[in-house]
């Protein structure tokens, strides 16, 4: 895939050269300096990966460089020069993007620099056929006959692996993966020299993601365009990028050839990111995570913005000039903004305590299993739907058992029925078949008479911490209501101290700071902690966690999983952890159930299942998950994707 990193030497001219770019958002509260003096070069045929947490300025940088941001965003400094073959005649010194007018920019965009947007669902017009949308763009930029344009559209759609017949489809008739392929075809329609991909696979299942990435790589090799690949998922970049650029608080903290990052980054932030990803292969290594939250981008940030969260922090950090430069002992081309930390330097003492407690348990991690609390036998859920009233089975006879003090992970892709199981077990949906047993007694939690009593034992944590708290109520209100209702059930009163106790349980300390806060004043991780505290108010024995960390930043995920893990051991909770990420299940769960098309296809102790998957679907899932460690091993391995009964290639939406 990647040639041994042919590093951009001084002689090779980049096709897009961004230097010292400053972008700010103006607001009444002051200027938010989202991008601060960023340098970035794109070379033909190379993929530059831009990684960082949400709010680090990576998307702002990309859109600002082609001047697609709307006011109140303004470019306040720096330069962006494009040197394309087709524009070289008119612009011998390169095309100055920041000086260009509206009409000139129209020629530049799409024709020279194309963008693949994150959400293919929203970027395609739902009332136009795919062919019409493709043709629109082709005709706008190329002066060719209708017949030629149609041929071109057919050629493009085949290029991204979709049958030409599908050109007549509407966007809703295509699956998410196919829609994203259409977006890529549209971006490549007029053979641009630069393609900006903004989280192109976020929200897609790993199997589809893998395919799209492979196709993109092949197209890049064939057509020779440069790619700027934006993602929050650093492990993804390690698989596809030639060079990785890591941003933090609007600044580049590390820029390095991918191979160098694979061996471990230099900058503490890069290392923190790398240490946040649970690995699928090899031994279970200690995960570190990154405690804390990013700084406020209003105003000046003296020195290193990562200082407050850095394990290596020292006083001199506040004086340094944030410029990436070569560091002693680094690989060639590896640049870091931290002059103090050398490659491979071990974390200082005490850093581990702030990191994850998800350490490696002793070999043969089968913990003594506690008593059985909740079990489902032959769970079924049918939905009557569709125009012809056909019955769709979301869950087709699933058995599962939740024991005290154990975590069971339910792993599957979107549409596999895993969330439906959470709804059935929490009583939000009524069973079509099978039975739910609490302490061995059958119960139907969805009926009104059972629901409230059932809630005393079984509580749920929701996926989206931004939606699961009422924006109009304070933290105290949320917790007090839960305590009060629970108190009424047990006949025990509640006290103000109980709110404090709950907040302390989820480490929201000092409690006075969080007690009276409204949800919008909290970060995503803090909100999720409040959600968990609310669930704990009932002192449940079972906790259903439906993708509790998928909406959070990578660095925060570990903290939340750690917290749940700690609560599990402290209160002997039985936990059902529902996730699409099998790697996190490996670290977090005792047992893994793999779900596919409404059925459990494989189950077993976590470590054993990940190491020796037997079902082809599990094997595919593991092979498709991005994993930095296995890159070299994976290189030429046969892709199992196309051998498994149709799971590799997605079917059409209908």
């Amino acid at each position, binding site marked *: 895939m990647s040639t041994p990193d042919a590093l951009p030497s001084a002689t090779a001219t980049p096709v897009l050269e961004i230097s010292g770019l400053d*972008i700010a958002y*103006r*607001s009444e509260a002051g200027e938010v300096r989202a991008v601060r003096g960023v340098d970035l070069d794109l070379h033909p045929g190379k993929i530059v990966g831009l990684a960082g947490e949400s709010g680090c300025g990576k998307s702002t940088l990309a*859109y*600002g460089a082609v*001047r*697609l*941001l*709307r*006011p*109140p*965003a*303004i*470019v*306040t*400094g720096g330069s962006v020069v494009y040197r394309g073959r087709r524009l070289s005649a008119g612009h011998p010194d390169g095309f100055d993007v*920041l*000086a*260009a*007018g*509206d009409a000139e*920019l129209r020629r530049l965009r799409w024709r020279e620099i194309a963008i693949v947007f994150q959400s293919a669902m929203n970027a395609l017009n739902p009332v136009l056929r795919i062919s019409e949308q493709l043709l629109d763009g082709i005709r706008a930029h190329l002066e060719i006959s209708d017949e030629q344009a149609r041929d071109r559209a057919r050629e493009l759609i085949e290029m991204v692996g979709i049958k030409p017949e599908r050109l007549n489809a509407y966007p809703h008739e295509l699956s998410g993966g196919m829609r994203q392929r259409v977006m890529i075809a549209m971006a490549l329609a007029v053979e641009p020299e630069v393609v900006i991909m903004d989280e192109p696979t976020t929200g897609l299942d790993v199997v589809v993601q893998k395919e799209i990435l492979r196709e993109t790589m092949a197209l890049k090799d064939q057509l020779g365009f440069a790619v700027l690949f934006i993602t929050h998922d650093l492990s993804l970049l390690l698989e596809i990028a030639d060079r990785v650029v890591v941003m933090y608080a609007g600044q580049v903290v590390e820029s390095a050839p991918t191979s160098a990052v694979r061996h471990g980054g230099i900058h503490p932030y890069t290392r923190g990111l790398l240490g946040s990803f649970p690995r699928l292969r090899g031994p279970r290594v200690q995960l570190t995570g990154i405690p804390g939250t990013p700084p406020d981008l209003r105003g000046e940030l003296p020195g290193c913005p990562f200082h407050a969260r850095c394990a290596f922090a020292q006083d001199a950090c506040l004086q340094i000039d944030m410029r990436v430069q070569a560091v002693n002992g680094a690989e060639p081309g590896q640049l870091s903004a931290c002059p103090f930390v050398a490659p491979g330097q071990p974390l200082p003492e005490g850093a581990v305590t702030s990191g994850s407690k998800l350490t490696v348990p002793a070999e043969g991690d089968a913990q003594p299993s506690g008593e059985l609390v909740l079990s489902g036998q032959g769970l079924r859920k049918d939905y009557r739907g569709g125009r012809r009233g056909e019955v769709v089975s979301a869950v087709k006879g699933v058995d599962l058992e939740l024991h005290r003090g154990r975590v069971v992970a339910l792993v599957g892709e979107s549409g596999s029925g895993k969330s439906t199981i959470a709804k059935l077990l*929490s009583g*939000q949906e009524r069973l079509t078949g099978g039975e739910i047993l609490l302490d061995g007694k059958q119960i139907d939690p969805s009926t009104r008479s059972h629901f*409230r009593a059932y*809630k005393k034992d079984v*509580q*749920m944590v*929701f*996926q*989206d911490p931004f*939606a*699961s*708290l*009422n*924006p*109009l*109520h304070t933290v105290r209100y949320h917790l007090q*209501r*839960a305590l009060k*209702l*629970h108190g009424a*059930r047990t006949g025990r009163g509640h006290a103000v101290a109980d709110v404090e106790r709950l907040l302390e349980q989820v480490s929201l300390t000092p409690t006075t700071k969080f007690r009276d806060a409204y949800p919008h004043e909290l970060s995503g991780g803090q909100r999720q902690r409040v*959600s968990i505290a*609310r*669930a704990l*108010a*009932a002192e449940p024995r079972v906790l259903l966690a439906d993708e509790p960390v998928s909406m959070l930043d990578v660095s925060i995920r570990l903290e939340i999983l750690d917290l749940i893990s700690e609560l599990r051991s402290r209160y002997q909770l039985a936990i059902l952890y529902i996730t699409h990420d099998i790697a996190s299940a490996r670290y977090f769960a005792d047992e893994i159930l793999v779900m596919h098309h409404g059925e459990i296809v494989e189950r077993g102790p976590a470590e054993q299942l990940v190491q020796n998957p037997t079902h082809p679907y599990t094997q595919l899932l593991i092979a498709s998950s991005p994993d930095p460690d296995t890159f070299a091993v994976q290189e030429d391995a046969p892709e199992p994707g196309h051998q498994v009964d149709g799971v590799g290639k997605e079917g059409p939406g209908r």
Partner: protein
Amino acid sequence: MPARSALRRFAAGFGRLPLKAKIGIAILSLFILVAIIGPAIAPYDPFANTTQATPGAPNGQHLLGTSATGGDILSQMLVGTRPTVILGLVTGLVATALSVVVGTAAGYLGGYADEILSLFSNVILVLPALPLLVVILGYLPHTGEVATAIVLSALGWPWGARVIRAQTLSMRNRDFVLAAREVGERPLRIILFELLPNQIGLIAASFVGTVLYAILTSVALAFIGVTNLNSWNYGVILYWAQNGSAVELGAWWWYVFPGLAVALLGMSLVLINFGLDELSNPRLRSSRVMNRIGRRSWRPADPTPVIREGMEAAL
């Protein structure tokens, strides 16, 4: 002391409102003031008749002129403001309360309850309101403000109910509502404490819209004579103007001043509605204010402005 601080908070809240809302509230307050003190400051008895046979133009004694029978237009308007405003507010309150109850019930309960309530409101929605009002009020024994308010309320709620139902539907499956169920909250409490507070903006807008509908309809009804002509409101003045051939006689003051009052009152309500809209949707506000960067304003489709240090003045 607490009274003063409450007053200050109120003033501060008013200060934060969008300009449109401020203007609207100011005009509406004027009308409400007139509604309260109007009858007391009216210089003449609005029913007073003289032997005069033609309408008199505005002059020193009759600031807004007189009707054909010598009635003072200003006094008629001052007295007529109260019934107009009260009718609008009462109808707005009753109709909005109905629409909130029906809308949230239909949206939250779903299923058959939703089907039935939606069918009911849709039927009322498609009834031609004005002809129906004419028929109903024409046959009611005591046509007057009370009857009008009742009938207008009964016909005016479905629009708001549909909007609130739609909003409730979209909010019912939000995680925070599901979470409240998880905690064990009862449906009524979820509706009152989780759903309704999130819809205050919508309910307020619906209320303002209904008040406007009630005022305009009552004026229209009075104008065509379907009301108690023994009490005054803007529509009744217009009715007499029409009866007295004001247009043919060139007695513009007879219909322009009451017409203007209706228009102003309506405008104040529309302005308040716009203001509420901006309040609940900050994007409407910022899109105009924030696009002025440097010395020019930027359309959304423009390329990102490039303003280097010190260049601000040059733009």
